[in-house]
């Protein structure tokens, strides 16, 4: 009996390890394929096609991008500024909303929470939203158009409210109120310091969304200098136009562009920062996903 169970455990462990290892490898394989392609020799690629291992290891794609980095740096700047400004504004607005909506003495909290939630089940669709931003607010080709419409989401407001309800005891807020503290100063001095992990989690969700956004640029931006990083990469894949333009801008040195591998190298530049930060921020996302799934 005991031996049989021991064997069953071993069999299970082997199956589990193999399945998990295979799935984990499939998860990262695409990244390895992209990196390997970006390090290949462009002429060989154009002739023979990509392979899993790099063909004739060479950094030529990276050196080409770094030789004329202006447009890449511009796209980086747009994305970084957008990410910082958007995440910070969103965090301030949503933490205030989350605090108010978690207060039990605020009688309208249920109806307002429902009105926020309602937007996830019914809406006017893409077209009226687009016309609101481009024609009514006149934000076409403005950096505000790629920032403002994303600062808040119902999911994140509910997540924020849950974080505050879980971490700020009602009795504490009540006793501050008796001591004569105003609601805003309770929020600022008592509530915010109690929810650092909540702020970090939601801030990171916001940051990730802004960093990975290409959609807003594709909708509202027509000036290449205002493209977000992801949309810059997107364009490069579609037509290679942006890169040709930036190359003609610096015609003094005639360089032959490794047109295939440079696309993959650009993907590495665009995704690199996320992969580098990933090990440090992963746990915040895991806690956010867990709490959001239970309460959301």
């Amino acid at each position, binding site marked *: 009996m005991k031996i049989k169970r021991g064997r069953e455990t071993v069999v299970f462990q082997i199956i589990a*390890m193999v399945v998990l290892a295979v799935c984990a490898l499939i998860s990262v394989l695409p990244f390895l394929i992209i990196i390997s392609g970006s390090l290949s020799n462009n002429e060989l690629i154009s002739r*023979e096609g990509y392979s899993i291992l790099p063909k004739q290891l060479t950094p030529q794609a990276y050196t080409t991008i770094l030789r004329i980095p202006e447009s890449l740096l511009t796209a980086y700047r747009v994305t970084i500024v957008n990410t910082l400004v958007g995440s910070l504004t969103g965090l301030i607005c949503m933490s205030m909303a989350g605090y108010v909506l978690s207060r039990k003495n605020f009688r309208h909290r249920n109806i*307002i929470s429902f009105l*926020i939630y309602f937007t996830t089940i019914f809406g006017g*669709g893409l077209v009226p939203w687009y016309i*609101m931003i481009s024609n009514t607010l006149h934000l076409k080709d403005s950096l505000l158009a790629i920032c403002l419409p994303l600062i808040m989401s119902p999911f994140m407001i509910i997540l924020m409210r849950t974080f505050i309800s879980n971490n700020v005891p009602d009795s504490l807020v009540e006793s501050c109120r008796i001591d004569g503290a105003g609601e805003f100063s309770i929020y600022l001095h008592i509530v915010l310091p109690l929810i650092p992990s909540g702020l970090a989690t939601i801030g990171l969700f916001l940051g990730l969304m802004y960093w990975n956004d290409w959609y807003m640029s594709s909708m509202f931006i027509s000036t290449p200098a205002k493209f977000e990083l992801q949309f810059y990469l997107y364009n490069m894949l579609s037509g290679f136009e942006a890169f040709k333009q930036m190359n003609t801008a610096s015609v003094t040195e005639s360089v032959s562009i490794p047109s295939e591998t440079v696309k993959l190298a650009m993907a590495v530049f*665009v995704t690199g920062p*996320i992969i580098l930060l990933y090990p440090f921020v992963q746990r915040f996302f*895991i806690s956010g996903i867990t709490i959001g799934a*239970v309460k959301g």
Partner: protein
Amino acid sequence: MKTNNRRRRLADRHYLVYYLMLLPTIVFFVVFNYIPMTGIYYAFTKFSFTGGLFGSQFVGLDNFKYLFKSGILFRITRNTILYNIAFILIGNFAQIVLAVLISRVMGKLFKRITQSMLLLPYFVSFVILRVLVYNLFNYEIGLVNSTFASMGIAPYDFYNKTALWPFIIIFFYLWKSVGYGSVIYLASITGIDPELYESASIDGAGVFKQILYITLPLLKATFITLFLFSLGSILKGQFELFYQLVGSNGNLFTVTDIIDTFVFRSLTTDFDIGRSSAAGVYQSVFGFILIMTVNTIIKRKNPEYALF
């Protein structure tokens, strides 16, 4: 009486501060969600940018009629629903299997590393999928065809053949989302009382029986919640996934066009505001009815699972 008045005045002041703190949120949802709801009217017009909301010609149900008669509505609805059913069923199955395996596998480091690797695709943008698909399936230089060539197999023209795309799309959906979902299931597994396993083990139940009779039944609640949630949004497609994988490749539309890609394309490339709105309104209204129906049924049968 006097204290009552004072208390009320204090409460009024609280409400003023509360509403000031809510102001950005209220403005945001009014501007980006509630006012645009009036734009449903566009779906009944032949929209012109110069005319604006009320200057455009009213055409009644013409836009809807066109979508219906041309067969577009049927095609995009069918694709959206079938893909979502596949995503929900296969996705949840894979997430549950992985979560159970992660929770039971030995070796802390192995556990942590595999979980990190599985979650990584969730963090990259969908544009990376476009890079990847280009890298893999390009006719001349794609990894797949160059591997075929080295094995003496004729190249496969992915972008002109529809047969494989449902599998490609489902595969990349799983690639992107399985890690995220398994985190949710793993959290429910961690919440299971370890004594249940201990007593089962004393009674002679092995790992497989413990999973079958303890873990899986206890995951039922999580599964039903997630299932109902996705059932309610079955008409909402994974726009970014489809758009980045397929783009505007008309050859593949019979199997890859969903409501969201159609709405986007009609707006941004065909500039057909009326038809685009009509498809959007159809999705929104039909989806709303669906959610309300699902929710009412659940409320009657099993109120604890109700969505709201």
